């Protein structure tokens, strides 16, 4: 056996850490946090989310408030989307672009009031996103506050999520039964405020609950108790990664980075060029990526050996790209991967080869996403791929 056994070197702990330890979780370093990678079996956790439900601790995510009279205008300037156009209670997947059109981070923005927006960023980008928002909002009448330490985040994902959430003891969520996809609503858990959103990163129906850190353990326990008998299991980051990959959702640092234009990642629709006024990255995005820029594609390969991040893709003897994420799909049973390829090679059906540690494995381009939930109700087609890391 080998040296690929993960080490645990990071320091930050989630407010749910002791619960994870008691549940026997294996931990991994994620953006400086010790987070559960799995509790027992990442395949079992993956299947539970597809067939019943999984309970995720996402407390490492960054939450940044943008508040004030001109908060909406500030975000219209700072981000790629038109945040002033979303209604209170609506959520929007967006991008923070660099001036040259590259992607600083992908995020979800929740409008909780006329003048209040919660920006949720990837843990690894917390500092850069907060700093950029402060700088970009400086000319507007609003305040930017990195409140990441004031939030724990618990996600319930899977077809039984609603059934479970509707009966959590001590939880009162305004209009839960009518909450549509990519909408949020306030709630209460005992004496604590909740922000409950019908969002997620698994390709299944589900909810994300933002709560004060000191209430997180009790909320987790209450949800787990409500899920008894439904098939709900605690689920780690390993299953979260295979779930989002099957759903064709990008992960920052893999599919998205500072060198990638949104259109290359299939996120052109996230950039609102029709909105009035300038925004950071606008000129670069209007000019478009350099000629010959590669585009994100899905690959399906033969056998059981997955093409993993960093593996080369060949067209005959020519190296044509690199895998950004890949795994043996637990739901589909065959290896899937995402990769950037020349547009000429991006048509579904294009036959290529993966170099899997020295062996060539036949692969073909297929449309993203690899997997779509069979009965994901209330999901508008253009929202299905909205997502967040």
């Amino acid at each position, binding site marked *: 056996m080998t040296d690929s056994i993960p080490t645990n070197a990071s320091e930050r702990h989630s407010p749910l850490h002791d619960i994870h330890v008691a549940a026997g979780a294996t931990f991994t370093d994620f953006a400086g946090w010790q987070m559960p*990678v799995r509790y027992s079996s990442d395949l079992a956790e993956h299947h539970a989310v597809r067939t019943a439900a999984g309970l995720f601790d996402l407390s490492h995510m960054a939450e940044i408030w943008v508040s004030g009279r001109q908060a909406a205008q500030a975000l219209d300037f700072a981000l790629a989307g038109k945040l002033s156009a979303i209604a209170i209670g609506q959520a929007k997947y967006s991008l923070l672009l660099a001036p040259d059109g590259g992607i600083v981070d992908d995020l979800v923005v929740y409008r909780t009031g006329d003048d209040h927006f919660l920006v949720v960023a990837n843990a690894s980008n917390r500092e850069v996103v907060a700093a950029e928002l402060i700088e970009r909002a400086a000319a507007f009448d609003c305040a930017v506050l990195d409140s990441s330490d004031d939030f724990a985040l618990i996600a319930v994902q899977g077809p039984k999520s609603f059934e479970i959430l509707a009966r959590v003891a001590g939880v009162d969520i305004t209009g839960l039964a009518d909450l549509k996809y990519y909408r949020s609503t306030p709630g209460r858990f005992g004496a604590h405020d909740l922000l409950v959103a019908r969002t997620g990163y698994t390709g299944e129906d589900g909810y994300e609950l933002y709560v004060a850190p000191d209430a997180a353990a009790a909320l987790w326990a209450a949800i787990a108790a409500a899920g008894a008998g439904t098939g709900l299991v605690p689920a780690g980051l390993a299953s979260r990664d295979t779930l989002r990959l099957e759903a064709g959702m990008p992960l920052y640092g893999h599919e998205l980075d500072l060198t990638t234009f949104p259109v290359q990642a299939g996120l052109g629709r996230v950039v609102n060029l029709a909105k009035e006024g300038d925004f950071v990255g606008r000129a670069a995005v209007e000019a478009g990526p350099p000629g010959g820029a590669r585009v994100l594609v899905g690959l399906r390969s033969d056998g059981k050996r997955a093409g993993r991040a960093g593996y080369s893709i060949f067209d005959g003897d020519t190296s044509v790209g690199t895998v950004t994420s890949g795994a043996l799909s637990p739901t589909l049973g065959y290896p899937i991967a995402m990769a950037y390829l020349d547009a000429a090679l991006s048509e579904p059906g294009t036959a290529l080869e993966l170099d899997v540690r020295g062996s060539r494995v036949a692969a073909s381009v297929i449309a993203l996403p690899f997997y779509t939930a069979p009965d994901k109700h209330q999901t508008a087609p253009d929202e299905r791929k909205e997502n967040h890391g």
Partner: protein
Amino acid sequence: MADITDLQYTAEHEWVLVEGSIATVGITAYAAQKLGDIVFVDLPAVGSTVAEGKVVGEIESTKSVGELFAPVNGTVVESNDAVTASPELLNSDPFGAGWLIKVQFTELPELLDFDAYTALTGP
């Protein structure tokens, strides 16, 4: 399943059961647990010659790829088709049905006993 206290071990988290001149080789429960759910196993062919310390196979989980090292010099006399067909046996029964290969050897290198291996992995 053998008594794990009677097995010998390597620092690469493999176990070795010696019976006469045949060494049965597998990975430890510790290794299987650290890898996560194992979804693919590639083993050397029967009849192939293996050299101590050299990579002879692969063990893939959903999250990572591990290499299988030969713990002894010798010839592979049997490889476990059941685990290549059902890699999850490595997670469910690493010391039993999840054995990997049997190697005919002439000389056994120095291996770790149970206490020495346990000291390596911690409690």
